[in-house]
C-alpha cells in the first residue's frame, strides 16, 4: 500500500482514526489539541515528535487507556470495548514484565483474562516465544535476561493475542544501537509475517524512516500532526537500506520536517 505524502483524506481502509482529539490533564497540562490521525489497515506508521509532544498520550488514547477530552476515536468496525481490546497489543518503553513470573508466564499473561481467553493458550505462547527466538529461555526470570531479551519478551507478549493493531511506545529507546538494529529487523520481519498494523512512537527520525511506510510528524505540546511523509521504499529492508542514498535522503526530509514542526508548528 504505497502512501501519498499528502495528509490522507478519510479513507475507507482506515482501521482507526483520531478526529479533532484534544487531551488536557487534570493538572492543566494540555498534551494534545486538534489531533487528526488515521491508521490504515496493514501499514507501519511512525509518530515522530519532540519529547513531551503527546505522542505517548495519543497512543494511550488509541488503546483506550486514556479518554480524549475533545474529539473522537473512530474504529472501522463497531465492536465492544472488550472485544476491541483483544485486538490491540501494547509495548511500552520499558519491558514492563512481571519480575516474579518467568518468561513463559509473562508471555501468557494476556491470554489469562477476559479480552483474549483462549483454549490454545499454551500453543500460542510457545509460538510467540519461538517468533522472538526465546524458546530456550522460557523458564528464565526477567532479571536473568539482558535488556534486549526483555524487550523481546515484551514483544512476544504483545503478539501472543495475534492483535490486528500493535501499539509501540518508544520500545527500543533504552537499548544500545546494536540491539536496536537487530530488533528493528526482527520487528519488520514479524510485521510482514503477521500482517498486523503497527503504530510506532519514536523520537528518532532514523528509526522511523527505517521502519515505517508512513511518518507522521508532531508539533511540540500541545501536539498535533503537522506533516506526513511517505517512506515508500519496498520491504524487506535490510542493512543495505540503512546505508543507501535513498535512506539518507528520506532521513534528511524527515529531519527538516521535524525541524519545521519544532520551530513554527509546521506552518
Amino acid at each position, binding site marked *: 500500500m504505497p502512501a501519498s505524502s499528502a495528509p490522507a483524506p478519510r479513507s475507507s481502509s482506515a482501521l482507526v482514526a483520531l478526529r479533532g482529539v484534544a487531551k488536557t490533564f487534570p493538572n492543566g497540562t494540555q498534551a494534545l489539541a486538534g489531533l487528526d490521525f488515521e491508521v490504515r489497515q496493514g501499514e507501519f506508521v511512525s509518530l515522530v515528535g519532540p519529547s513531551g509532544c503527546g505522542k505517548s498520550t495519543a497512543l494511550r488514547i488509541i488503546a*483506550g487507556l486514556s479518554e480524549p477530552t475533545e474529539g473522537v476515536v473512530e474504529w472501522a468496525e463497531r465492536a465492544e470495548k472488550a472485544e476491541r481490546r483483544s485486538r*490491540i497489543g*501494547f509495548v511500552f518503553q520499558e519491558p*514492563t514484565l512481571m519480575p*516474579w513470573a518467568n518468561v513463559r508466564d509473562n508471555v501468557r499473561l494476556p491470554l*489469562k*483474562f*477476559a*479480552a483474549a481467553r483462549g483454549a490454545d493458550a499454551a500453543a500460542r505462547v510457545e509460538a510467540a516465544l519461538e517468533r522472538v527466538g526465546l524458546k530456550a529461555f522460557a523458564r528464565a526470570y*526477567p532479571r536473568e535476561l539482558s535488556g534486549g531479551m526483555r524487550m523481546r519478551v515484551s514483544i512476544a507478549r504483545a503478539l501472543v493475542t495475534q492483535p490486528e493493531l500493535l501499539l509501540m511506545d518508544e520500545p527500543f529507546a533504552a537499548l544500545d544501537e546494536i540491539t536496536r538494529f537487530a530488533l528493528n529487523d526482527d520487528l519488520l520481519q514479524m510485521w510482514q509475517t503477521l500482517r498486523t498494523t503497527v503504530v510506532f512512537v519514536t523520537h528518532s527520525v532514523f528509526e522511523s524512516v527505517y521502519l515505517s511506510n508512513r511518518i507522521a510528524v508532531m508539533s511540540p505540546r500541545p501536539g498535533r500532526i503537522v506533516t506526513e511523509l511517505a517512506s515508500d521504499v519496498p520491504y524487506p529492508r535490510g542493512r543495505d537500506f540503512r546505508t543507501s542514498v535513498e535512506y539518507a535522503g528520506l532521513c534528511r526530509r524527515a529531519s527538516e520536517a521535524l525541524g519545521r514542526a519544532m520551530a513554527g508548528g509546521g506552518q
Partner: protein
Amino acid sequence: MSRASSRRGRRDRALRVVLPVIVLALGLAIWEAVVRAWHIPPYVLPDPVLVWRTLIADWALLGQSLLVTLTTTVEGFLLAAVGGVGLAVLFNQSRVVEYSLYPYAVILQVTPVIAIAPLLLVYLQQPTAVLVCAWIVAFFPVLANTTLGLNSVDRNLADLFALYGASRLEVLWNLKLPSALPYILAGLRIAGGLSLVGAVAAEIAAGSAGAGSGLAFRITESGYRLNIPRMFAALILLSVTGIVIFYALALVNYLALRRWHESALQGER
C-alpha cells in the same frame, strides 16, 4: 566470577559465623571470671555455668512456660499476618473502609501495649488477653507495609492488565499481591519480633501464677523470689525464641524472593 573472589566470598561467610561465636565465648569467659574473682553471690549475678545448670534443672517448668509463650507468639503472629494483609487488601479495594478505619488502626498502634494490657485483662481471660496484646503490636507493621506494597504497582503493568480486561479480583491476585510480596514479607519480619514483645508485655502485666504461665511471668516470679539464675535462664530462652523467629522469617523471605527480587540478590551478576 573468579575463583579468588568466590574463595573470598566463602571466607566472608565463615567469618560471619565464627566472629560472633568468638565474641560470645569471650563474653562468657569474662563473665565467669568476674563472678569468681569478686566472689559475687548468685542472687546478685550468677555465673554462666550456674545459669546453664539452672536451665537444665528447671527445664520441666521453663520448657512448659516456653511452650506457652511460643504458642501465644505464633498465634498472635498468624492473626497479625492474616489481619494485617486482609485489612490492607480491604483498604485497597474500598476507599470508604480505608478512610473509616485507618485512624483507629493508627491509634491501636501508637497506644503503648503495656498500657492497654491491664484493661484487656479486666475484660478477657488471661490467655486471650495476652494473645490480643501480641496481635495488636504485631499487626500494624503488616498492615502498613502491605498497604505500601499494594500501592507500589508498576503503572504500565496496571495499564496492561486493564488493556487485557482483567477484573478487579484478577488484578489483585495476579498483579497487586505479587508486587506487594516483598513489602508483606518485610512487614512479617517486623511482626514476628513484635508479637513476642506483645506476648511478654501482656504476661508481665497479667502477673498471675498458674499452669498457663509463660516465660515472662517466670521472670517476674523469679525476681520476687530472688532466684536470679532462673531469671537468666528464662531470659536466655526468650532471646533464643526471638532469634529463631527472626531467622525463620528471614529464610522464608529469601526462599520466596530469591529468583526475582533485588533484595534477595546475592553476589555478582
